């Protein structure tokens, strides 16, 4: 099936059983990557960009990315938040070159064009010329030469931005199920504790899968299980939003007796009681949350609560086979000194040097290495069945299926011929989603679509 936007055309045959299969081409094809920038990151989604706690004062700013587009988030003098593309309207230079700071205006280094905190152009050197020689033409309109301004919305201290002229309200986008999880973490003012950054040589969606995958947790992460932080048999499950695009994986500890019973007969490497941590203070936390929650908000936000460590992880694509992962660790403004120290200490568990999360980036890399050829073959995400639904089990890939279902919807990728019972209903929905132009001009099978229903689910 060929999906097109006004800029790109991508041929991508999704396997017939679309719900449990992911063709490797989506991780390899530069055309898919380009199509994502338009259809997904600039599509009808809310992209996480910052924490309000990073922009507390008027004139504070943060430079970040939506997809791979550089953007700046600012807090204006009236307290309102703004977002704009970080690219000078004149000749395309990066206007803001610091990651964070406080400025009344943003001035391009190249020719000193200056912009206010909303991204409006307010100054052009020699606009009227010099020594009687002409400057810019008389019909030059500063208002038409501002930085591209984006929509901004805030939920519970999380700032999101959108390129889309029409996008559902942020509260609806996040959805009731996900709001309740966010409300649990962002229940009072937070304080940023620090950042850590790493580069991973893999497509960003391999990490999007990883954080929706509770199945791997006890199998890949030796440390989790060896020291009793996490076991597949422990209580927990997966909650999705109504459309399956966001997810929350949560687990809680069972009593000692329950755990012993659960592992009595199992000979899994995930239970190795003989090992104990030489430095148990690393795990000695404070009772605060019932277990562990890894929450995702499509496309690139992860909110993590592991014991007492709290962090948002921002996935930034850097080309088809590389992404950056930024961890922003935080606590609450009312944390006492000891609790703050506990959060800091447990930050040793996650992040690029973290005992727990070291393997996640590595796992994404070994997939990227192996799929280099055979891009028309597909991975299997069938653990737990074919449903995209809330589950009371940690051995499930339901959230990964939800991610891909919504991804296909945004990207206009539909399954190839041979529709099976399982994906029939989805096929119906996605055939309506197919970009109208694509269906008319380039689609080999020419699905009929109603223009007014483009990109709306049936």
């Amino acid at each position, binding site marked *: 099936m060929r999906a097109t936007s006004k800029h790109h055309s991508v041929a991508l045959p999704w396997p017939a059983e679309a719900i449990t299969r992911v063709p490797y081409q989506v991780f390899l094809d530069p055309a898919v990557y380009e199509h994502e920038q338009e259809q997904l990151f600039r599509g009808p989604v809310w992209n996480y960009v910052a924490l309000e706690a990073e922009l507390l004062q008027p004139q504070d700013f943060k430079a970040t990315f939506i997809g791979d587009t550089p953007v700046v988030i600012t807090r204006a003098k009236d307290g309102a938040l703004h977002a704009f593309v970080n690219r000078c309207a004149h000749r395309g230079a990066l206007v803001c070159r610091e*990651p*964070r700071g406080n400025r009344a205006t943003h001035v391009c280094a190249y020719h000193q064009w200056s912009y206010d905190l909303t991204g409006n152009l307010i100054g052009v050197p020699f606009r009227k010329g010099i020594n009687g020689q002409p400057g810019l033409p008389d019909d030059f309109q500063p208002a038409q030469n501002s930085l591209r301004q984006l929509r901004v919305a805030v939920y519970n201290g999380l700032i999101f931005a959108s390129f889309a002229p029409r996008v559902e309200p942020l509260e609806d986008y996040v959805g009731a199920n996900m709001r309740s999880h966010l409300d649990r973490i962002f229940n009072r003012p937070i304080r*940023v*504790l*620090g*950042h*850590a*950054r*790493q*580069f*991973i*040589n893999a497509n960003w969606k391999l990490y999007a899968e990883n954080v929706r995958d509770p199945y791997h947790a006890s199998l*890949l992460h*030796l*440390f989790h299980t060896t020291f009793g932080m996490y076991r597949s048999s422990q209580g927990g499950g997966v909650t999705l939003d109504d459309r399956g695009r966001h997810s929350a994986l949560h687990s809680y500890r069972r009593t000692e007796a329950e755990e012993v019973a659960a592992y009595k007969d199992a000979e899994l*490497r995930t239970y190795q009681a003989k*090992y104990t*941590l*030489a*430095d148990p203070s*690393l795990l000695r936390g404070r009772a605060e949350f019932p277990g562990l929650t890894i929450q995702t908000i499509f496309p690139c936000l992860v909110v993590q609560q592991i014991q007492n460590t709290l962090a948002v992880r921002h996935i930034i694509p850097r080309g088809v086979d590389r992404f*950056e992962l930024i961890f922003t*660790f935080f606590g609450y403004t009312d944390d006492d*000194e000891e609790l*703050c*120290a506990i959060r*800091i*200490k447990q*930050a*040793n568990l996650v*992040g*690029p*040097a973290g*005992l727990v999360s*070291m*393997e996640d*980036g*590595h*796992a994404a*890399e*070994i997939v990227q*290495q192996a799929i280099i050829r055979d891009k028309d073959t597909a991975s299997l995400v069938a653990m737990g069945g074919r449903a995209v639904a809330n589950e009371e089990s940690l051995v499930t890939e339901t959230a990964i299926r939800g991610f891909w279902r919504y991804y296909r919807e945004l990207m206009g990728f539909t399954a190839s011929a041979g529709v099976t019972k399982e994906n029939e209903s989805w096929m119906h929905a996605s055939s309506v989603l197919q970009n109208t132009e694509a269906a008319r001009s380039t689609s080999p099978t020419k699905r009929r679509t109603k223009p007014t229903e483009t990109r709306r689910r049936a």
Partner: protein
Amino acid sequence: MAPELLTRCADLLYQEAAYLDERRWAEWLALYTEDAEYWLPAWDEDGRPTDDPQSQLSLIYYSSRTGLEDRVWRIQSGLSSASSPPVRTCHLVTNVRITNLTDGQPHVSSHWQVQIYRPEKQHAFTYFGFYEHVLRLEEEQLRIVRKKIILLNDIVESVLDIYHV
């Protein structure tokens, strides 16, 4: 300052580098006192390394040697896919100076570079920065009481562990 002290300090740093490169973990751990502090600060929003491991983020921080023992256990277990197959490292330590002796313990600063080769990816890269060691004489041996590592290129290539720095 006695030149032989500087030589002894530098020898210890070179020995540590060799143990890390040769993956002689037990001998590497034995260079540290039991109460040794090991600290790899993160960088803050103003572009400076964090200066208080208790209240600010670190990339790695242990207040005693036990934390390093856990790291070594993990590496030796062979069960961490992120740590196997092992990378090959080459630690270069230079510009060794004794900066302070007032508490009877030599404070030694040095510059370092680690060339890293990942056979799995057939990819080589470099981390580099500064070390600050505090050494103490124990049973006629100089041992490490404190090691602070400043990692100048803190954008991590996938994984960061004790043998990378």
